[in-house]
């Protein structure tokens, strides 16, 4: 029994149907729990209440990057092993990733207003996220523009590959272009910079919640894509006779 076999649509439908309820329950519990717990944390002595934004901002930002990586992996699986469900999973993940990016951008922008005194600064990290959002948009637009699913899967796969390289390249170019305002990773293990436990645990929970939420949405959306493809396949069969 290898992981590849789940790429068979029938098997995937069966397995995903079985685990989906559990994932949904977990996602709801962890996301709501993490976000509400975060909302109830005490005020920070420096940032005041704005620190509560971190429980949305950081998980969303992490998922935004992770989802793109996941799309890159599934695209590669499709391009190399030709597993159809893998291609559909990449397609299904993209809108979720775009929304996560949007949440990171929006919460960051709202946070920036009190912290930096402006809604938007061309800070390297913010800018790289904007660029990531552009890549998501292009990827989604390409999927929806091509009618033939086989070509669409191949072409978006190639785009995802090339796009990943350029997303990385842009990140370095942007760093060269402007110095940052945004703080570094405060979950780092370096003792002095470590966030206090009051904020750390709700943050972990909320991160887990966002991860599960993504998994649940990914399963649902992949199932949708499979059904759509099956519908198209049946119709094509009817026409060809």
């Amino acid at each position, binding site marked *: 029994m290898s992981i590849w076999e789940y790429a068979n649509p029938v098997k995937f439908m069966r397995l995903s149907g079985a685990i989906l309820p559990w994932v949904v329950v977990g996602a709801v519990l962890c996301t709501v729990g993490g976000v509400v717990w975060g909302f109830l944390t005490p005020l920070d002595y420096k940032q005041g209440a704005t620190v509560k934004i971190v429980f*949305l901002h950081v998980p969303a930002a992490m998922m935004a990057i992770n989802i793109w990586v996941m799309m890159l992996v599934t695209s590669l699986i499709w391009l190399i092993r030709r597993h159809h469900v893998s291609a559909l999973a990449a397609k299904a993940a993209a809108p979720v990733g775009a929304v996560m990016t949007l949440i990171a951008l929006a919460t960051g922008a709202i946070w920036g207003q009190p912290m930096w005194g402006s809604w938007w600064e061309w800070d390297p990290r913010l800018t790289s996220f904007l660029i990531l959002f552009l890549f998501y948009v292009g990827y989604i637009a390409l999927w929806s523009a091509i009618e033939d699913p086989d070509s669409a899967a191949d072409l978006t796969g190639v785009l995802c590959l090339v796009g990943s390289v350029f997303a990385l390249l842009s990140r370095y170019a942007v760093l060269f272009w402007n110095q940052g305002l945004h703080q570094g990773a405060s979950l780092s293990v370096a003792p002095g910079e470590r966030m206090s436990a009051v904020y750390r645990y709700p943050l972990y929970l909320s991160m887990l919640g966002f991860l599960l939420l993504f998994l649940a*949405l990914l399963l649902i959306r992949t199932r949708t894509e499979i*059904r759509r493809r099956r519908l198209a396949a049946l119709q094509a069969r009817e026409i060809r006779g």
Partner: protein
Amino acid sequence: MIELGKYAGTVLAAYGVSVLLLAGIVWHSVAANARARNDLHRQEGRTNG
């Protein structure tokens, strides 16, 4: 009690926007799934029956 201090608007806006966006993608996913399931049911009924 929940304290938000002078940044209440900021925090509420951040939570509001995020919840809205999340609700949007969840609704979109679920609705599209239901539609796809219905369409497929109808088609399968026609092909087999």
